[in-house]
């Protein structure tokens, strides 16, 4: 699967580029699902980086798993984690031990990329320091603005909040801090008037 084209939207909606191997003393890649393809493309175009590359990979929620292809790259360090939450302690430790000059790349779903960027910012880096390339599923990570619970892998709009049960309309309004789109109650003014859900984010 190749790079995704996005429709123009409101300014808070992130846009993504293509991973470009950059100069740096170390290279940290974090990818999920189809994002593996972007990592393979980047490292195949710049094989010299492999000796200083660390790849953290999370198979996709939709079942896509490219562990084999990533392992075949022969990078200095490869780590596979079952979920972002499971990978986070490792990511935090790598960031805490790193020096300026390390390049950070994130590829895959928007939720993954945003959480990598948030971790990098918590480590003191500017948002722009993380290169991002969207690949694969458009499923969204959504915060319910009412109960604040986050639901992962939202494909339907509206959808039911997995925490409080309200029916939420998924906005393009995106929070970098929370690494999530915002979901607002769709029938607040006319309770019970709920349009049929459509699969907006595949």
């Amino acid at each position, binding site marked *: 699967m190749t790079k995704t084209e996005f429709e123009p939207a409101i300014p808070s909606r992130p846009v993504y580029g293509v991973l470009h191997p950059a*100069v740096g003393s170390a290279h940290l890649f974090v990818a999920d699902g189809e994002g593996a393809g972007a990592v393979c493309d980047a490292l195949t175009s710049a094989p010299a980086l492999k000796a200083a590359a660390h790849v953290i990979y999370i198979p996709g929620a939709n079942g896509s798993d490219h562990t084999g292809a990533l392992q075949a790259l022969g990078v200095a360090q490869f780590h596979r984690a079952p979920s972002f939450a499971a990978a986070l302690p490792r990511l935090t430790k790598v*960031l*805490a031990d*790193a*020096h*300026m000059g*390390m390049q950070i790349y994130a590829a895959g779903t928007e939720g993954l990329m945003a959480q990598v960027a948030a971790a990098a*910012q918590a480590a*003191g*880096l500017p948002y722009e320091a993380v290169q991002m390339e969207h690949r694969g599923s458009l499923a969204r990570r959504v915060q319910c603005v009412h109960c604040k619970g986050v639901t992962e892998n939202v494909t339907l709009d509206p959808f039911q909040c997995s925490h409080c049960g309200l029916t939420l309309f998924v906005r393009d309004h995106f929070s970098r801090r929370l690494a999530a789109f915002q979901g607002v109650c769709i029938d607040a003014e006319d309770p019970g008037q709920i349009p049929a859900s459509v699969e907006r984010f595949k």
Partner: protein
Amino acid sequence: MSVGAPKIPVVVAEVIEVNALIKRFRFVRRDGLAMPVFSGGAHVVVEMDDHGTRRMNPYSLMSAPGDTSGYEISVRRDEAGRGGSLYMHNHVRAGMEMVLSQPVNLFPLDARAKKHLLIAGGIGITPFVAQMAQLEAMGGRFELHYSVRSPALGAYVDHLRGRYGARVHVYHDAFDEKIDLANLLKTQPLGTHVYVCGPKGMIAWVHATARAMGWPDRAVHSEEFLAPPVGLAFDVSLAASGKTITVQPNQSLLEAIEAAGVDAPYLCRGGACGQCETDVLRCEGHIEHNDHWLSDDQKASHTKIMPCVSRFRGAGLVLDR
């Protein structure tokens, strides 16, 4: 016209000769009010009446940001300059009444940084004196690398060493000591931001070295005020106010506009902030763009000018002012 609050009426409380080239000035308010609190890296524009010529020069504040009893600046004597620093050195005495702008910060610390690496050259030390006081009060992690010509010209070295100890590193040109920048940048923990204030060449060196080592641009901060360059006299038409003025060789376009009684926006008066950006309605000739604000494309298009530092050569220039 600067934006925001009214100007600050002050009296010069103290003039101290720091070394052969630098004097420090302390200002307190004439109206008995407290000075506004500022953040480290802020500057004020000092207004001078230099025997009939109005000069307005920006200087970084170096007193402690939370000290509302007065403001301090340091001025380096520039023999080749247009005269602002010479006026401060030769004519300003304790007890004189002067006027300051409100503080404006174009060189703030990024509070999200895990560590602040401060690189100063010569008089570029001044914003860092305030920033270090602020960082010390906040418990922020920092390191200063300060390059001076000689021990005699190392302004505030003893004071800073006394306060901040091993976090202060001093390099003397006279002894061929040079900041080992590549090594310094390589060994910084992730989340470090670097700040540089000093001569043009030093600023360019830090930006270029950091970029070549993979530092994100937004983690590299610099401040360079340009003194308005002198040049040939030229005429300008101000369309909105219906005036045609002549800019003298040692006057900036902004100063000439102000002298004609036309209100024009500014903040830094040094080509850095963007506040004075003005539309060019007609340009028959060549604009000498001296600012750090406009993009190369904007400069080439000759549709915008920064009157605080830029000049013109040619048959006619009409501005929307």
